[in-house]
């Protein structure tokens, strides 16, 4: 294994251990390769977000704010802590991504429902919940400038 690869894996593991000790313990207990891969993917994306320059999207985007990233990770930790034992891998965001205005976003998917959560640069949160019924009809509900406890409640209602 190359040195760069070993360093990358070692970095990812150390950040995971620092931020998600109990989650890692859960991962060990569950022994799920799928969960471990999803966690690795999420941290890889977070790591990539931290060093984005101005104009990273080629359309004048601002780099994601470090405060927004930390807030997002706090929410992710809460969701994983609350739901990993209930739903397994859907407790881990399907995707985390930067937003062009300096905020960050995570999306959870669970069955026929999905929730996109935005962490805004002003410290507030926004969300979009999309639900598909048995006839594949889609309904959506969105809100902006909500606080952390409200957005966590919405995520937990979807990831259930």
């Amino acid at each position: 294994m190359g040195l760069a690869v070993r360093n990358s894996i070692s970095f990812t593991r150390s950040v995971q251990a620092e931020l998600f000790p109990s989650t890692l313990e859960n991962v060990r207990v569950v022994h799920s390769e799928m969960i471990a891969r999803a966690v690795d993917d999420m941290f890889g994306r977070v790591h990539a977000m931290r060093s984005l320059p101005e104009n990273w999207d080629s359309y004048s985007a601002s780099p994601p704010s470090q405060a927004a990233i930390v807030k997002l990770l706090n929410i992710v930790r809460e969701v994983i802590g609350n739901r990993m034992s209930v739903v397994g891998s859907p407790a881990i965001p399907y995707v985390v991504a930067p937003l062009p205005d300096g905020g960050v976003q995570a999306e959870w998917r669970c069955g026929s429902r999905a929730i996109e959560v935005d962490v805004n640069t002003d410290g507030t949160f926004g969300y979009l919940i999309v639900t598909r019924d048995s006839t594949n009809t889609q309904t959506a509900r969105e809100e902006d400038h909500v606080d952390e406890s409200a957005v966590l409640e919405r995520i937990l209602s979807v990831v259930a």
Partner: protein
Amino acid sequence: LSPDPNDIEFRPEDELYKRLAPELCKDGLPTSGVYRLNKKPDPAPSLDLARLTTPDKVLSKAPKQGFGLGVLTVADVWELGLTVKYEPELGNDAHCILVAGTAPIDKQKTRDLAARTRVIKSPATIPPKLDIT
């Protein structure tokens, strides 16, 4: 010289190119972040009118390797209740923006736009796949 904005008449089959930053894609597909508004003076999502440019020319404006390229049709934009506005800018005669029409560009619309975007050049994978040998 750019065409006069008044001379550009959009047709439903017109195609619009969108650069896809790898950070905004998952499994090779764009997320809603691709079409999210920016807080800059020009916050509207930008695209390039395909008949006035080429994929290579659009991708040449990417700041690094790994960008993908997506295509939306004007019909897609109209069906979502949005409008395409031709706004040529210095160095880009094909530049257009999406603006609210009968509907606002809300979170759901950006998700719908991403879902309708056809990827013609796949973006790089984030995080990079590790080549463990």
